[in-house]
């Protein structure tokens, strides 16, 4: 399997789409989580106060706005890295990871390269596990890079504001890295499964995106008050990605505290793990059994 892992890593490293996806992810994440938020806060207009408002009240409004701004700025500081960045993994993360997983598997069918690979030496399970492991390593690296980029962005904002620099607790950071990797891995595994079943990149990406961006949203927003339906909704991968990612938000010193999650982070992680395992096992079964034509 290590031989396959080396080959898969070489392919992913040299593949332009891997770098394009990583750049898009990092750019959008830093832009939305830091650059845009800071630009808005730094250029916030003074509060509009009706004519004739007493001076004391005007002063109070100004202080309130300043306090709010300070609170929002603190959310961007490195000490709040985890709570500021982790929610992004359940927003842009799923489609990105799904595309990466579908590309890694589906392209082999599109280019018919499985016949070349499988006539070298490794068995099918070795090829498949090497591919998954390489994908996992790339996703984990992407998560680490995201937090590193977020830390740099937060540090720059702290320096611009002349605020003291603090860092998140190591344990919390590790937990966030694990949560981010798990969310991305779940969706990448779904991409791999779709590509394996459909033996196509485009179709699997299309169907995967329709599911993650459209179906999940529709199902989760259905105005059904039935208790059983609401419980069932809590087992969808998108919903659990949100639960896990948002479980870090409440620990923020500043920013908005999210409302109480209906599902514990540990339960959400278990559900995502189960989805990942099912996708991987199903894909491995289909890949092993099916003829390479």
């Amino acid at each position: 399997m290590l031989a396959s892992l080396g080959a898969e890593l070489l392919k992913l490293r040299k593949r332009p789409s891997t770098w394009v996806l990583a750049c898009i992810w990092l750019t959008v994440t830093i832009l939305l989580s830091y650059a845009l938020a800071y630009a808005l806060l730094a250029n916030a207009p003074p509060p509009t106060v009706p004519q004739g408002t007493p001076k004391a009240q005007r002063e109070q409004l100004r202080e309130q706005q300043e306090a709010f701004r300070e609170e929002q700025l603190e959310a961007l500081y490195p000490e709040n890295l985890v709570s500021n960045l982790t929610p992004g993994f359940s927003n842009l993360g799923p489609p990105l990871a799904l595309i990466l997983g579908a590309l890694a598997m589906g392209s082999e069918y599109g280019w018919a390269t499985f016949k070349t690979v499988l006539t070298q030496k490794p068995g099918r399970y070795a090829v498949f596990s090497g591919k998954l492991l390489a994908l996992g390593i790339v996703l984990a690296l992407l998560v680490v890079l995201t937090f590193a980029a977020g830390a740099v962005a937060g540090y720059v904002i702290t320096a611009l504001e002349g605020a003291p620099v603090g860092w998140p607790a190591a344990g919390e950071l590790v937990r966030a890295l694990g949560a981010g990797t798990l969310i991305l891995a779940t969706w990448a595994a779904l991409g791999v499964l779709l590509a394996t079943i459909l033996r196509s990149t485009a179709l699997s990406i299309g169907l995967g995106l329709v599911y993650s961006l459209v179906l999940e949203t529709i199902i989760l927003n259905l105005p059904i008050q039935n208790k059983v339906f609401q419980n069932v909704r809590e087992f969808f991968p998108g919903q659990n990605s949100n639960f896990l990612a948002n479980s870090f938000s409440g620990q923020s010193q500043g920013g908005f505290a999210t409302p109480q999650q209906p599902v514990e982070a540990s339960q959400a992680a278990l559900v995502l793990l189960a989805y990942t395992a099912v996708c991987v096992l199903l894909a491995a079964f289909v890949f092993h059994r099916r003829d390479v034509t």
Partner: protein
Amino acid sequence: MTEGESPLTPLVETSGLGKRYGSITAVRDLNISVRRGEVYGFLGPNGAGKTTTLRMLLGLIEPSSGAAEVLGQEPGSPQGLQGVGALVESPAFYPYLSGRDNLRVMARYCGVPDERVAEVLGQVELAGRATDKFKKYSLGMKQRLGVAAALLKDPELLILDEPTNGLDPRGMADMRAIIRRVGHGERTVLLSSHLLGEVEQVCDRVGVIHRGELVIEGTVDELRGGGGILVKAEPLEEAQRVAAGLAGVEGAEIEDGMLVLDTDPERAAEINASLVSAGVRVSELRPLARSLEDAFLELTRGETV
């Protein structure tokens, strides 16, 4: 070759091998054996089941019936594939990688050091274009890269599925030269080809497959048959009458203004003397050399390759 192993020990052996796709039978009850050190030609018209057979031998598709052994192992097993290099149909590589990087990827899969990549690139005369992206390669270069990948493990068995398919005459000549070069010595080659002339020149033994079934397996000479004698004489009808009455002549037919005798070509002088003494004027008498193509067309009932 291991101790006690005969040169005639088959490296590839199938027994009743078959593949069905629903109601369509692609390969039926196939029994072939490829011996160590030989170049075995696998011939058949389009859709005869050649590629399906080769895919079964490489473990890419599961047989519906029968069994096969490649290097004494189950097809597709890592132990068996260790000694097998293959190029199945058109060469398939990663278009965004260079030729060299494609081979580096394949070298990692089969556990071969990167140094081997340069060697095989040299063997297929692709070293000068090794850094070009695969998607920029011509068809001939792609085929050569496919052969290079097949050679990475320095395999004792090379399986090449129509390696000259789609190439221009120059590309075909180059590929033929490469096949001759890499197929010499103790290496065994299983070559599926459309090119009968090529098979005739290169292969020691040939198996002909038609509609999924093996029609014949043997040496090229065996496939051509015993031959005969071709006679140009006047009057032709008299020559036919005289020749048909000679001992050892099993048939005398007139075809395209020539007399075709079904007999041992060694008897040419004797037959000539008999015809002349019977007053027949013989202007030409030569052994009938049936080409592999004639034999092939006869075996496959005229279907084109």
